[in-house]
């Protein structure tokens, strides 16, 4: 089952515009990560925000996290055609197995972003 729900499911914008994607989740988390997936390729890690952080920046990316609302948003500023991809949020939840705790990732269904040149 997938913990995250992403909104919108699809987003179509013009080059130069900003794109905002939202993610909601259900349980307490250790961190939340955003990944990008181009057609036919694997996932590329974009940014990780810890549960005690509220906002994080990386280049043209800005991520916010509201643990009280169990939600996160990813903002891509000044979008480019090359940003066209599917974007997934993934929550890392502590999972105890074999006496070791690890971060089990649960992905949302993704937002398909299309940036028109």
């Amino acid at each position: 089952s997938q913990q995250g729900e992403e909104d919108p499911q699809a987003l179509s914008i013009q080059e130069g515009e900003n794109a905002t994607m939202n993610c909601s989740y259900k349980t307490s988390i250790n961190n939340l990560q955003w990944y990008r997936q181009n057609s036919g390729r694997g996932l590329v890690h974009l940014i990780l925000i810890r549960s005690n952080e509220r906002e994080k920046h990386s280049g043209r990316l800005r991520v916010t996290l509201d643990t009280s609302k169990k939600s996160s948003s990813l903002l891509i500023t000044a979008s480019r055609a090359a940003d066209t991809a599917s974007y997934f949020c993934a929550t890392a939840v502590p999972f105890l197995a074999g006496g070791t705790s690890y971060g089990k990732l649960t992905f949302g269904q993704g937002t398909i972003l299309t940036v028109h040149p």
Partner: protein
Amino acid sequence: GAGVSQSPRYKVAKRGQDVALRCDPISGHVSLFWYQQALGQGPEFLTYFQNEAQLDKSGLPSDRFFAERPEGSVSTLKIQRTQQEDSAVYLCASSRKPARRGGSYNEQFFGPGTRLTVL
């Protein structure tokens, strides 16, 4: 250095055939994960290895799915008697040590995946 690699990239199998999918993680990465991604969906967790130990296999959909990592590096996901519902992209990911005391779990680095089509 090299990223996570997977082979084959594409596999077509007849229903009932056994398949083996290989993952080469980033050198030195302790943790290795397998995910299944159906068309139009996000990846879903299958199993987790820490070194050679399979610590969590709660996501494996049936006993036809088997994974191993005998020497703590390369991993193989085997699917026996494939069914059409097994058609999906199988992703492998690796990461450094699971967590630091009081720290945050590490990001995972994904391979390109193996697209399995069962006819």
